[in-house]
């Protein structure tokens, strides 16, 4: 009772200083809360992106290596189409035969990744720790119109008009590219439609192109009937069109030939989360040339403001909040020490009255902790405001996921040849909600109280050691 009365009166007397210390702690704690909330929001957005890329239930994907650019001067693979630019103009060549490409439109359904034998899907499914595996074929239907002045100095490279097509295994609908989506209209594939020219269209693509169930969509000059519209998570990077895997295999091509009996993505579900690293190793051993991607490795490939915000929150935010927190702790400690030094006579008097040092230390600590609690409460308020501000400012973060088109350009000129592999980047908007959990609030209060305890410890340590006569003599 007396302790509380004394504490309350002291805080009221030193209200300005207490408020200053509390505000300092609040600033540090608020910044920590904001940064943690932003990090949590970014992580949530990342996982939403990854879930959209992966599909629900997918723990990892196996993809063939992204096709690299051909070596300058090397012969193109059999059946591959290449563009050559020479002083005579742009030429489209296939199997050694070339014709003028200027003004022509080329349609190419190519694999985004190097193909993997379809039998590998079954082999992966048999691995220890694998619950299920399904194959998929991620393709790009790329239309390129070659400008009539292509190849002349200053002329730009033709820009591909790309449509992403996923071949989905109709026998494994719970796993694969369609697993995270919701059919909003029509229906998904049935096993009977594995060889049909039917398509499920992403809702965004359908809206942009005014497609509905019963419409047709043309892929590599083949018309597909839309049987369903699928809505993928907002943060996902869905393909535009899904077609049966068998049709994708039949229609798609790679530089070496057709994609029949091949996939380029294997969706894998591990038996448990703890199995993921071991399964990843096993698959790498089984398919050494291919890429096994888990959620964490995929996250590093995502660029855009999502990536920048993640870096900002993790690097700058972390260090900024740590710096402000240290500064706040230091200021709180110095001010508390100064305040306690000014009260040396008061504490000397209390010692003369028979107060033990530990009781005086407890009184000082109590005052510091109370300031810390006030600072913590203010800090939580500031943190919540900061989180709300971040949510408002960065309500939509962009995540850019690169996908290969499967095309290669080779320009031959007097200075030698130059090659390029255009990629079609998918940019998606991810909602960001900087969320403050009860755990973060509790941690913030603990942090502020720790700041108060630290400040009180320094101050009370000095006064606790002071002999009563010395304390009384300090100001007398």
């Amino acid at each position, binding site marked *: 009772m*007396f302790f509380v009365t*004394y504490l309350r009166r*002291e805080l009221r007397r030193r209200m300005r200083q207490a408020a200053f210390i509390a505000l300092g702690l609040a600033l540090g704690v608020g910044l920590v809360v904001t940064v943690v909330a932003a990090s949590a929001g970014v992580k949530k957005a990342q996982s939403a992106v990854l879930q959209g890329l992966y599909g629900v239930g997918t723990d990892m994907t196996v993809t063939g290596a992204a096709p690299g650019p051909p070596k300058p001067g090397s012969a193109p693979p059999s059946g591959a189409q290449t563009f050559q630019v020479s002083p005579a103009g742009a030429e489209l060549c296939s199997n050694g035969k070339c014709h003028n490409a200027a003004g022509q439109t080329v349609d190419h359904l190519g694999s985004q990744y190097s193909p993997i034998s379809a039998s590998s899907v079954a082999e992966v499914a048999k691995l220890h720790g694998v619950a299920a595996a399904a194959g998929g074929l991620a393709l790009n239907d790329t239309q390129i119109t070659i400008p009539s002045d292509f190849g002349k100095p200053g002329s730009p490279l033709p820009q591909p008009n790309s449509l992403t097509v996923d071949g989905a295994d109709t026998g494994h609908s719970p796993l694969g590219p369609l697993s995270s989506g919701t059919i909003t209209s029509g229906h998904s594939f049935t096993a009977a439609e594995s060889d049909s020219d039917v398509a499920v269209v992403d809702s965004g693509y359908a809206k942009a192109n005014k497609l509905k169930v019963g419409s047709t969509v043309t892929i590599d000059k083949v018309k597909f009937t839309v049987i369903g519209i699928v809505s993928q998570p907002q943060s996902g990077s869905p393909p535009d069109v899904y077609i049966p895997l068998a049709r994708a295999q039949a229609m798609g091509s790679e530089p070496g030939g057709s994609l029949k009996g091949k996939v380029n993505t294997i969706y894998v579900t591990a038996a448990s989360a703890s199995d993921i690293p071991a399964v990843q190793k096993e698959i790498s051993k089984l398919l050494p040339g291919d890429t096994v991607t888990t959620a964490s490795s995929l996250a590093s490939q995502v660029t855009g403001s999502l990536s920048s915000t993640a870096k900002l929150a993790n690097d700058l935010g972390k260090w900024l909040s740590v710096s402000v927190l240290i500064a706040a702790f230091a200021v709180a400690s110095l001010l508390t020490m100064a305040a306690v030094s000014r009260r040396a006579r*008061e504490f000397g008097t209390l010692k*003369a*009255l*028979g107060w033990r040092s530990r009781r005086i230390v407890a009184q000082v600590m109590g005052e510091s902790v109370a300031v810390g609690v006030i600072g913590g409460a203010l800090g939580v308020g500031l943190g919540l405001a900061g989180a709300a501000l971040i949510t408002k400012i960065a309500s939509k973060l962009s995540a850019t996921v690169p996908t290969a088109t499967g095309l290669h350009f080779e320009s031959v000129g007097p200075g030698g040849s130059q090659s390029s592999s255009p990629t079609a980047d998918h940019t998606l908007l991810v909602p960001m909600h900087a969320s403050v959990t009860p755990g973060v609030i509790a941690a913030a209060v603990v942090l502020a109280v720790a700041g108060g305890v630290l400040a009180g410890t320094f101050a009370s340590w000095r006064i606790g050691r002071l002999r009563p006569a010395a304390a009384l003599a300090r100001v007398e």
Partner: protein
Amino acid sequence: MYKLTGVNKIYRKGRRTVPAVRDLDLVIEDGEWLAVQGRTGHGKTTVLQLLGGLDRPTSGIVEFDGQDLARLREAQVTRLRAVSIGFIFQTFNLVPTLSAAENVEAALIPLGTGLAERRRRVAAALESVGLGDRARHLPSELSGGQQQRVAIARALVKEPKVLLADEPTGNLDEGTRDEIIDLLGQLWRELGVTLVLVTHDSSLARRAQRVGVMNKGRLAIRQDARRAAGPQAAPAPAPGPG
């Protein structure tokens, strides 16, 4: 009550040593009123601090009720102060944020006295110094004399054996000083406490049974009226050094 034998107190300031008390031998009896006079810097306050266990001697024995304060642990000395010794300071030393009653109550906190008992004793102590109606006032709302009365109530509320007063009238005007002198004399007579008083004030020292003078750290007893008066009788006036 007190027996000081060969007490020396030397302060060190860098390489320099300053002897504050030299070869002090002194016996203070139960219920005695001793006044210590002397010029500033001659060791009066140091003697009071040694008696109150606020400081320890460099050498010698400070015996209080048979216990050498220099040999007791800090916690034991603190306990002794809490139970047996009351202090009165020149500048009152009241906690500015606490009311008169709370300042008095602060002296009972180390004793672990219950709330009801604390309130009863605080009210009685304030009543005894004539401040029963000022219990809720802050020190800043009281005059100097009233603040010193609160300080006296704080020193007496725990019913100590000894009262150590350091220039209790030093910060008061003449009229208030007389009130405080009368109050201290009255309390000494009524309560039978041992009173050791450091003062420049000859009129106050004159009312003590014994008057000692500190000169360069050495104490010389100038007046001893113990045979003429005791705690139950008004002390005879004693001439001070001026």
